[in-house]
């Protein structure tokens, strides 16, 4: 993109150098009114700021996840997990003997999940899912080229000593010298804290989804001694062989593919799997950063489009103001292309300066979003992520280039249109004729284009990847047919008909094509639909204003300022349409997000009912799980279903690499107690039959609606009912097929996919322990009290319990916060709309100086002039607000009704929030006009009339 932008600006410079007259015209027009030039630049920079801001947000997330990867892996690039100690020793020896220059470290550690508790503060504090690790500290420090990035300090613990990571120390509130208790394999172990280690490198080594590393390093031999008497069903300890590649913490990941191949060749792949943890982690960081940036870019697109409309409006106004000048230039022999070039030179000055300023402002926008997002990302407990503000210079360059390119393209197209003036009409400042008859050439081109678009649309119906064509196809066909239609009927009727049909398509099209508009989960599907709806509605509004004109005039008869305020927008429909579109687009998105946020926020009861027939979810340490009878013995516990839980790798079409996903094995007790509601079932099976099929056939699996989905937005099906997926044991690498027979809507419990006990035996064996419990609470007991009791009584088992309701409420709250974050970002779009209105009104004041002078000469008071301008802005803003809000309500209700976001969701409008939103938008737009209105009221009549001798 920088090359394209460079070429564009270079071309403009060359034109300016070769044609001094055009340069003088363009440059002088741009610089003769510095204050207004500043205003144009200010109005145009917001689009670039939003683009850059979204990149900065993406950079921050990428950098923050990378930082977490650096902390939790450090020099570790690949790992091999081996459950058998003898095999582990052999494998380690084999890798060490490779003696390849790409590998600069091999070590191993033995790890097992354990619960820890302490009474250091007087209160019992516990970490149910810590990792107990055995490591030789000297070996650990020598791992890789740089001992400091291993995080390992001090001596290897001995006897009952334990060296713990800062995350565990914080959780247990302990320091050196304090005592902690570890629980695993049914035993209790008192340990003395002899050191604290940072979350860095091997000391911070963690493979789970959590961003914290509650590690505890114990004396070698401790775990094997405890595991010797492990109860049945407990997960065995695993030896993990760590491999470090040559190079720095991040670039060493580049060697991963080669090193993995090298190791696999040496050790063989039967029963062993080499995992490229670093590369995968960094790629995940890039992916998440990109997706998050894309999400904000998608939401920001509305504001960017609004910014484009503003730019077009500004240029159209500039051209109208200079109409007679342009006419004269054409009269004295200037070609249309000369006018275009002069405008492009002038526009390039605005585009360059506004994009430069926009990129700088974008850093601030990104920073603000990161500040607002930080508490949300930091509020997920163990899964929280510390957002560290960061931006790449590349993002600034891309933001600048994108902004400049959009501006230049807009300016060029607008200039082409402006240059098509009629010389006489321009000189005499006469309006363009209303009678329009499309040229035969236009009719033919339009019809051919319509036929091509129609064919493309038909093709898209059988290919959901062509969703943009599905959404925009029919309206584009209709607009392409407009020249032909205007030959057959009045142009106004044709335009109205096309806009009305497009609007209807925007509202009902998704339902008509079987709900495939949003199947991709791409935020830009929403952008295209929203833009289509708004533009269609604005065209209808501007075309029908003629019918309302009489009514408006009668209503405004008593008030001259009111009459003036509506007269100008009604007389200049094209320009009013641009301003309206700009405002309506922004209000549309804000209202839509507000309504969706409210709809989701009000679904707690439904979501709880759909999630499970049980009341409480309890999870435990996989090395020390409680038995069902232990749980059932507690007060208030009526019934317990045990789920065997583990992580699998899924091989599915469309993915380059297996995707990790959690899975839970269920039994009849779970099905009897109330499994989650299914939204999709294999054809021919009832809900109950799906669950029975799952229990009886180990080759089947039930997945959540967002299975394998990595992006945000509504759940998007990556797999279909009846598809067969490959399921891999992450340790052994052995793969089995599973057929999808059902889909559950939500997974607030994080249970992942569902298989039977028989199935999990085949997939993960004893590594999947019964460490999840769905608990039904007695009718006379309180579910939260029972959850609290479970945690208190079963600390040794590392039990964490929470009612389903409470989980759903927590997620609902997090969702709400995220919606608020999006609303805050969209508020920047509102700023574009309001600032745009202000800029348009400033230009209007300049344009109407003479009219204001006449009115003042006739006796118009300054306050009446002021009022007329403010009312005019209010009139346009009010229309924009009405169009945007009504469309958003219709679209949201349609979306909810189609079940895109889940079944049985009630449509509930947040009237108060909506009132506040639209009220603030209206008041802000009036305030934005206050200054230009004040300026207009101060225009001295004699000066405005330019009455001079």
């Amino acid at each position, binding site marked *: 993109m920088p090359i394209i932008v460079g070429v564009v600006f270079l071309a403009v410079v060359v034109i300016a150098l070769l044609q001094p007259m055009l340069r003088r015209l363009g440059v002088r027009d741009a610089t003769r009114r510095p204050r207004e030039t500043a205003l144009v630049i200010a109005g145009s920079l917001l689009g670039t700021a939003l683009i850059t801001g979204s990149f900065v947000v993406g950079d921050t997330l990428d950098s923050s996840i990378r930082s977490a990867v650096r902390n939790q892996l450090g020099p570790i690039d690949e790992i091999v997990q081996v459950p058998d100690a003898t095999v582990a020793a052999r494998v380690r020896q084999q890798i060490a003997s490779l003696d390849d220059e790409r590998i600069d470290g091999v070590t191993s550690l033995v790890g097992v999940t354990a619960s820890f508790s302490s009474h250091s503060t007087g209160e019992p504090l516990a970490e149910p899912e810590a990792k107990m690790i055995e490591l030789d500290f000297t070996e650990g420090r020598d791992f890789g080229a740089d001992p400091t990035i291993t995080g390992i300090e001090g001596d290897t613990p001995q006897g009952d000593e334990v060296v713990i990571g800062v995350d565990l120390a914080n959780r247990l509130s302990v320091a050196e010298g304090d005592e902690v208790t570890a629980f695993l394999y049914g035993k209790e172990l008192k340990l003395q804290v002899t050191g604290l280690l940072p979350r860095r490198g091997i000391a911070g080594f963690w493979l789970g989804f959590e961003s914290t590393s509650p590690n505890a390093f114990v004396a070698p031999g401790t775990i094997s001694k405890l595991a010797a008497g492990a109860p049945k069903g407990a997960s065995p300890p695993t030896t993990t062989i760590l491999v470090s590649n040559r190079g720095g913490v991040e670039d060493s990941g580049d060697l991963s593919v080669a090193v993995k191949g090298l190791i696999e060749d040496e050790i063989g792949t039967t029963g062993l799997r080499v995992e490229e943890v670093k590369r995968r982690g960094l790629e995940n960081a890039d992916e998440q950063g990109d997706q998050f940036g894309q999400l904000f870019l998608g939401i920001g697109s509305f504001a960017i489009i609004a910014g484009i409309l503003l730019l077009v409006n500004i240029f159209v106004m500039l051209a109208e103001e200079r109409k007679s000048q342009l006419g004269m230039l054409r009269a004295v022999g200037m070609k249309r292309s000369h006018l275009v070039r002069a405008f492009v030179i002038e526009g390039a000055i605005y585009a360059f300066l506004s994009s430069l300023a926009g990129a700088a402002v974008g850093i601030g926008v990104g920073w603000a979003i990161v500040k607002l997002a930080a508490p949300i990302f930091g509020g997920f407990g163990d899964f929280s992520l510390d957002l560290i503000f960061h931006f790449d210079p590349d993002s600034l360059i891309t933001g600048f280039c994108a902004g400049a390119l959009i501006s230049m393209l807009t300016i060029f197209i607008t200039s082409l249109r402006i240059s098509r003036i009629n010389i006489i009409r321009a000189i005499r400042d006469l309006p363009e004729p209303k009678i329009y008859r499309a040229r035969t050439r236009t009719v033919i081109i339009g019809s051919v284009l319509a036929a091509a678009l129609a064919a493309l649309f038909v093709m898209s119906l059988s290919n959901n990847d062509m969703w943009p064509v599905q959404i925009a196809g029919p309206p584009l066909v209709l607009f392409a047919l407009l020249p032909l239609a205007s030959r057959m009927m009045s142009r106004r009727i044709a335009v109205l008909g096309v806009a009305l049909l497009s609007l209807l398509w925007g509202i009902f099209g998704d339902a008509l094509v079987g709900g495939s508009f949003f199947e991709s989960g791409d935020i830009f599907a929403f952008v295209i639909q929203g833009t289509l709806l708004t533009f269609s509605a604005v065209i209808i509004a501007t075309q029908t204003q003629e019918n309302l004109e009489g009514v408006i005039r009668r209503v405004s008869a*008593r008030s001259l300022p009111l009459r003036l305020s509506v007269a100008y927008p009604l007389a200049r429909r094209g320009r009013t349409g641009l301003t309206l579109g700009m405002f309506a687009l922004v209000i549309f998105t804000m209202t839509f997000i507000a309504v969706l946020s409210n709809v989701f926020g009000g679904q707690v009861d439904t979501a709880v009912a759909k999630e499970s027939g049980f009341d409480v979810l309890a999870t435990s340490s996989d090395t020390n799980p409680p038995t069902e009878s232990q749980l059932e013995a507690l007060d208030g516990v009526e019934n317990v279903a045990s789920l065997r839980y583990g992580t699998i790798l899924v091989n599915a079409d469309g993915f380059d690499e297996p995707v990790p996903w959690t899975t839970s094995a269920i039994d009849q007790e779970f099905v009897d107690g109330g499994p989650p509601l299914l939204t999709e079932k294999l054809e021919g099976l009832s809900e109950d039959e799906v669950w029975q099929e799952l229990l009886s056939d180990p080759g089947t699996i039930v997945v959540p609606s967002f299975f394998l989905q990595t992006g945000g937005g509504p759940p998007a099906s990556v797999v279909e009912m009846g598809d067969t997926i490959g399921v891999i044991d992450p340790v052994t690498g052995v793969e089995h097929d599973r057929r999808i027979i059902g889909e559950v809507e939500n997974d607030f419990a994080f249970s992942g996919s569902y298989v039977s006990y028989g199935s999990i035996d085949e997939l993960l064996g004893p590594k999947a322990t019964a460490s999840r419990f769905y608990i039904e609470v007695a009718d006379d007991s309180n579910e939260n009290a029972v959850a609290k009791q479970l945690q208190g009584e079963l600390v040794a088992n590392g039990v964490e319990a929470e009612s389903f309701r409470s989980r759903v409420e927590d997620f609902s709250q997090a969702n709400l916060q995220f919606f608020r974050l999006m609303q805050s970002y969209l508020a920047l779009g509102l700023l574009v709309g309001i600032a745009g209105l202000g800029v348009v009104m400033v230009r209007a004041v300049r344009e109407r100086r003479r*009219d204001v*002078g*006449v*009115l003042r000469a006739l*006796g118009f008071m*300054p306050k009446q002039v002021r009022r007329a301008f403010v009312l005019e802005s209010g009139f346009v803003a009010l229309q924009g607000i009405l169009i945007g809000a009504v469309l958003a309500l219709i679209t949201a209700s349609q979306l909810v009704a189609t079940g895109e976001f889940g079944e049985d969701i009630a449509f509930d409008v947040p009237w108060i929030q909506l009132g506040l939103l639209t009220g603030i938008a209206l008041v802000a737009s009036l305030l934005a006009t206050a200054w230009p209105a004040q300026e207009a009221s101060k225009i001295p009549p004699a000066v405005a*009339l330019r*009455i001079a001798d």
Partner: protein
Amino acid sequence: MSQIEEAKSEVSLSTPSILTAENVSKIYKTGAETVEALKDLSITIQPGEFLAVMGPSGSGKTTFLNCLSGLDDIDGGRVMVEGQGLHKMSDAKRSRNRAEKMGFIFQSFNLIPVFTAVENVELPLLLSGRSPADARKSAEQTLERVGLGHRKNHRPNELSGGEQQRVTIARALSGKPSIVWADEPTGNLDSETAWSIVGLLQELNAEGLTLVLVTHDPAIGEKASRLILMRDGAIDTSASQ
């Protein structure tokens, strides 16, 4: 004796003046340069008078009109309208005074482009507080009076230059002002249309309208009951009648 001559003869110096200007001065500053556009100018305008102001370009004709009508501020002297100091009034009061007592006709018509002919004409009426229905009726009558009743619902860009100037005249007359200021009202018109406009203004003057008209055209100036010639911001008494 023609109607116009009769009207001229009725103008008597003993009648109380409609406007008196005493030692009015106006200075324009452009950068370091200072231009004295009006120099101690004094004049009295009688009711029903048709005063023509002529002079070469830069002599101060338009400044004379702007300052005496209150469109522009003055730097010295005073302008009395019906016994009240025009420039001592607040902006709001001066605006009301213009709406109720003055009418303006400009060379480039200066109609509000988004209003129809009748809407332009009713503007001063609405500004002086007349009801919309009353204002509309009166505006329509005035348009009829200037011969444009059939074009009342047309916007300015749909009218010819002569028609636009007639609308401007109708707008100037609609509020039944004490005085009408016309700045080169025929400057943008062809000679035939210009003479029909002058004829209309003469008729109106004959009906009692006080008219101050700035013009370059001596033939039009001759039609006035009094003619003053401006030179370097002052009235050239030797050439004025």
